[in-house]
């Protein structure tokens, strides 16, 4: 069991959030259409290698790294834990995201629009853990008048599949726009947000201390998590849920590419603007109320014995109510925003991969990207500087520097190779931490194989 925990810790700290800063607008790959449906692609048609067109792992924890705790440096582990907790912010978060493209294909229509479609599986999880809860576990509650709040406590986890179809349309030489329609099928969902409340200890009047639970409002919605009979959870059950037997929803992506001047490009996209309706296997829990207690007042009345503890529990249950809810609910997908501005320079090129010659292409490109995820559970912002270089007609590279909540020293590298129709790409970040992978708080890797055809292939 402990090895499993190590493995989880190591993998989770290896892998970050849903920012695919390297893949975004990279080498006109078909996968860029999933990050910006208005991205420019020049090929005639493409098909991703089934199950291998995009494998993506991302995860991170903003609190501390594996190395912070387990470094073999002679410092006692309890001192390292203490230091990590001292450095813990008001709330830190863990996020993991995994995607597997099952199908990805697209082709150019007669009117020159590019139609792309596909199906992918996605798992994502995010947990925001407030410092107050860490302190409550690590130190206890013995500090008088210290308020331990659950205000920043939030979490979500979901396994779903996404069927999508999108169109990228060139309006004119300057503008390209696109949109993608998505149908979501959720296997399971856990959702907890907008929690409030606190507990604390203060000096009492009738007794030494008075304990408070103030204005607690906690809601955890789940779908497909709790079963009367867990035997139903088989591989075929999950397959059925992934293949539109789950809780269904819909969403759209929209995006654009704009060339204000010859060498300049501005792009932007909004992804996963949508929702899922949860109707199946619903079981949600709500805790609401306030309670304060100075202890149990004993009567010492031998003729009238009291069931003090039961009375206290009943009183507590009346004032802090735990409800189990079976009604359906909806949840918005966490929206992702991307934007970039880039300046292209170097040699212009036109080759087999870029038969579509209305756009100017240059060997070098540099610029800045912004990524933001906006969700009810948690939102954050990341900024990336990048330099993209076309080495030759077979190899394109992209180097990124990203600042996000996980790190200010995140260097990433993307490689995309073309040999005739065969395309393989690899994008990974946090390369600096490769010198000590245990010391990274996050990492991000995407790789895949496509077959990209133009008129000459």
């Amino acid at each position, binding site marked *: 069991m*402990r090895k499993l925990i*190590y493995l989880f810790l190591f993998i989770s700290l290896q892998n970050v959030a849903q920012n695919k800063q390297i893949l975004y607008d990279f080498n006109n790959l078909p996968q860029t259409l999933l990050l910006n449906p208005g991205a420019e692609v020049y090929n005639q048609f493409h098909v991703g290698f089934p199950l291998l067109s995009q494998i993506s792992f991302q995860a991170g924890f903003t609190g501390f790294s*594996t*190395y912070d*705790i*387990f*470094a*073999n*440096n002679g410092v*006692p*582990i*309890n001192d390292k*834990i203490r230091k990590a907790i001292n450095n813990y912010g008001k709330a830190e978060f863990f996020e993991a995201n995994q995607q597997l493209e099952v199908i990805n294909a697209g082709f150019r229509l007669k009117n020159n629009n590019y139609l792309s479609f596909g199906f992918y599986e996605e798992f994502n999880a995010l947990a925001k853990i407030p410092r107050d809860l860490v302190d*409550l*576990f*690590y*130190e*206890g*509650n*013995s500090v008088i008048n210290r308020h331990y709040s659950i205000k920043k406590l939030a979490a979500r986890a979901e396994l779903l599949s996404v069927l999508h179809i999108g169109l990228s349309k060139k309006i004119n030489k300057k503008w390209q726009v696109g949109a993608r329609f998505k149908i979501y099928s959720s296997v399971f969902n856990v959702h907890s947000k907008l929690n409030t409340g606190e507990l604390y*200890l203060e000096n*009492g009047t*009738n*007794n*030494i*201390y*008075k*304990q408070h639970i103030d204005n607690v409002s906690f809601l955890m919605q789940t779908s497909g998590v709790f079963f009367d009979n867990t035997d139903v959870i088989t591989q075929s059950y999950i397959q059925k849920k992934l293949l539109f037997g789950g809780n269904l929803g819909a969403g759209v992506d929209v995006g654009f590419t704009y060339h204000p001047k010859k060498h300049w490009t501005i792009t932007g996209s909004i992804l996963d603007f949508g929702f899922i309706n949860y109707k199946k296997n619903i079981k949600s829990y709500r805790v609401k109320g306030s309670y304060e*207690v*100075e*202890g*149990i*007042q*004993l*009567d*010492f*009345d*031998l003729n009238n*014995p009291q*069931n*003090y*503890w*039961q009375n206290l529990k009943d009183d507590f249950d009346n004032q802090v109510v735990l409800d189990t809810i079976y009604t359906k609910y909806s949840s918005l997908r966490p929206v992702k925003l991307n934007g970039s501005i880039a300046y292209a320079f170097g040699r212009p090129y036109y080759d087999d991969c870029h038969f579509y010659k209305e756009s100017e292409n240059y060997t070098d490109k540099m610029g800045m990207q912004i990524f933001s995820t906006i969700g009810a559970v948690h939102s954050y912002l990341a900024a990336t500087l990048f330099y993209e*270089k076309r*080495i*030759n007609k077979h190899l394109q*590279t992209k*180097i990124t520097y990203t600042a996000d909540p996980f790190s200010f020293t995140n260097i990433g*590298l993307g*490689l995309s190779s073309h040999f005739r129709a065969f395309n393989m790409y690899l994008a990974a970040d946090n*390369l600096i931490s*490769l*010198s*000590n*992978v*245990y*010391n990274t708080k996050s990492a991000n890797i995407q790789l895949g194989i496509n077959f990209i055809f133009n008129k000459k292939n």
Partner: protein
Amino acid sequence: MNLKYYIISLILISTLNSCTKSVDFNQIDDANVHPIYTSTLIYADFTAIKFLDANNQEITYTTDLIEAPIDKTTIKYLEKVEFTLIITNTFNREFNFHFNFFGDAGQLVYELKPIVIVAPNSGETTFTLEIPPDDIQVLNNTRYFGFLVTLKPSSDGSTLNGTEIANLNLKSSVKLYYNFRKI
């Protein structure tokens, strides 16, 4: 330097440098967390009438019992249990306070020591009682906490009466010292 070679070098260096600094996951065996949780406990206020029977005759003791709210799954992590009693006595009489643990069948399984001796007119006095580490396992067999307050005879032979304006006030709390080992 030609950019092509620069990038190839960068990749090679990244690959060659890919390694880990020494970590030791076995350190987890030495890790522990020592939270201290404080909870309010019982309180009571005794006037003279509590120690008088229906005929206004002095009785020497009074007692009460509560179900013990013990989470037995965490007892193995308990290192120390410390009770704090703050007792204010304005009677001109000595009281003894006994804190006993009883099992499912009501049998006595443990007596917390020492017995608290509350001197006459002692004002507010704080007492600390501890379950020693070796005795903590008795909590596994404890179903009830029992409290016994005994009234000691006066030195001058006087007895309490119902009009006496004095009280014995009891306040209490408990601190649970945990050691979560091998987290």
